[in-house]
């Protein structure tokens, strides 16, 4: 505790005021630096991406450097990312939602609730490259070659804790009066959850899922040695599978200038996807909050 004084001389007070103003200015400067850095980064990514994007990006396959039409486009990578997200979602969303429903509805009278909540928070912070190694050991080694299933599994591993926690939080926001009314009418707990609570929280649950999708759409490290990446268009996840993030990484760290230009365009698309998803989440959340406030009145 700093020493307290009964009397502060005017000089000391002036010094304190000056110091306070200096620190106020410092906080403003720091915030300005942070925003300026991000503005610069965003502007640079945007301008480079816009400069090099074109219809060919979305429709053409990658062409090896030196051949006519090089570098082509990233159609296979875009499709690959969509398929990987879909596969990861097929596994990750149900499991995550079930865990979230457990945490929200069933965990109050069970010892399992607190550990699961804690572990899912901790799992959400695990470095994704470690998840990639897990996918490699569990799914690539037995199959004998890199495949898209391992990549999707690694993405699902990252997705499950996020979906579980957001589902739990959104279900907790549903007022208890809904549940009590349903049970008062004689419905079983299953029917209450499935027919009353979840439909009431559908919008929020969808936003939670969209947040998880935005997160895994940008993941590179877990795909590096599970799906490996490919320059071919392939729809079969049993092969090494292309994805936008790995393709961009390979192009960006490669030696060919026009492939690097294509990497900027891919980066822009990736950021656009993440931005749109986040904006939608933000928009629907604020609209639902307004509705909820309106309903309460």
């Amino acid at each position, binding site marked *: 505790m700093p020493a307290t004084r009964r009397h502060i001389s005017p000089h000391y007070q002036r010094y304190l005021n000056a110091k306070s103003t200096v620190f*106020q200015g410092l906080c403003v400067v720091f915030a300005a630096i942070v925003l300026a850095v991000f503005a610069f980064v*965003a502007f640079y990514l945007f301008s480079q991406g816009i400069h090099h994007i074109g219809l060919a990006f979305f429709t053409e396959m990658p062409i090896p450097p030196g051949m006519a039409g090089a570098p082509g486009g990233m159609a296979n990578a875009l499709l690959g990312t969509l398929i990987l997200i879909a596969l990861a979602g097929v596994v990750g969303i149900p499991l995550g939602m079930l*865990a979230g429903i457990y945490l929200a509805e069933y965990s109050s009278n069970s010892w399992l609730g607190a550990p699961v909540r804690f572990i899912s928070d901790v799992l959400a912070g695990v470095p994704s*490259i470690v998840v990639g190694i897990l996918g490699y050991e569990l799914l690539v080694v037995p199959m004998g070659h890199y495949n898209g299933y391992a990549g999707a599994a690694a993405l699902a591993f990252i997705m499950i804790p996020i979906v579980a926690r957001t589902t739990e939080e959104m279900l907790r926001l549903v007022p208890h009066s809904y549940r009590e009314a349903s049970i008062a009418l004689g419905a079983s707990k299953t029917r209450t959850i499935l027919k009353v609570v979840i439909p009431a929280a559908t919008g929020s649950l969808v936003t939670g899922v969209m947040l998880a999708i935005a997160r895994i759409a940008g993941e590179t490290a877990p795909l590096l040695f599970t799906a490996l990446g490919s320059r071919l268009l392939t729809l079969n996840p049993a092969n090494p599978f292309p994805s936008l993030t790995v393709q961009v990484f390979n192009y*960006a760290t490669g030696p060919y200038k026009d492939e690097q230009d294509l990497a900027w365009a891919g980066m822009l698309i990736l950021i656009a996807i993440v931005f749109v998803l986040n*904006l939608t989440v933000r928009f629907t959340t604020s609209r639902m909050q307004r509705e909820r406030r309106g309903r309460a009145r």
Partner: protein
Amino acid sequence: MSSESSQPISPEPNSPPSGEGIRRSLRTKRRFNVDAVLAGFTRLGALCIIGMLVALLAVLTIAAWPSITQYKARFLTSSQWRANSREVSVRDAAGHIVFDSDGEMTTKTVPPEFGAWPVIYGTTVSSILALLFAVPLSFGTALFLVRLCPRIIAGTVSFLIEFLAAIPSIAYGMWALFVLAPLLQHYVEPGLRHALSWMPWINRWLFVETQTVVGRTVSQEIPLTGNDMFCGGLVLAIMILPIITAISRDVLKGVPREQLEGTSALGATWWQSSREMLRYSRSGLFGAVMLGLARAAGETMAVTMVCGNNTQVRFSLFAPTQTMSSLLANEFAEANSDIHRAALAEVALILLVMSLLFNIIARWLVVDSSAHAAAH
């Protein structure tokens, strides 16, 4: 429920529903306990999460087992990371090379040696560097958002910062590779070297390396490539800024108004009451810093592109380095031998344990949602 009769009566077709009739029809006969099905499925989901953590730890330990048993404690302290075997000439007691009867050098094969100390050092120093840059900026921004920012733009600024946390890390990596590293290489680092040149001991410390080779001490200027520990630390700082700012802002917002009003009543200046705010929420702020540290330690893609990828312990900040995650990203897909893969799995295990530790400490201190993204 009702005690009149125990026989279920179906309501007559055209009669208005009576209270007793409704009660009867709602008491349906279930052949099995429906509730147990959903309860079972959800419990399966919950156990799945626990199983995921257990599987992560178990699979990595099993994969790393050959390396753990072979290198034991040496793995953490040895500075040699060499995946190939070397032919070294055999020297006798006096240090002269032994030649065989044909007049050729005799050589012995030195097996691969895996020591994780260089990458542990790289991760630690780059994370600390990132924290040094990011924590003051984040706390300043959080204070600005909570106490100084006009209400109109506070929401937009907060959204921007949270959106920036969601940008994939290869975006930052690419920007750093093509913009930040050349900037450091051509302007900042030579500028620093010039500016510090009037203090020769700092210059020697930061920019010059000495090596003792075969008894001779050689010192040389480190070539400044821009891909070094300094750049890696800067990129990591940019990546953890949004997380620390967002959590700090939430924590500072949770300081009760009475606290602030009390300090104002005692005649505190803006900075004095802000300092009291920071002191009040110091455990939450420490948790935010821990979360940032966890993210910095696990960050892969951005660091891999700019850290220089040199698996050696080098004192200078302006020498290329390697972190645990960049080592994995670079070498795992190309590891040929089983022992190499096992050593890499052991590095992954160390990284996982480190990250789990930071996350657990942070969660003890800050109770928050999973909205704040983690390292990728």
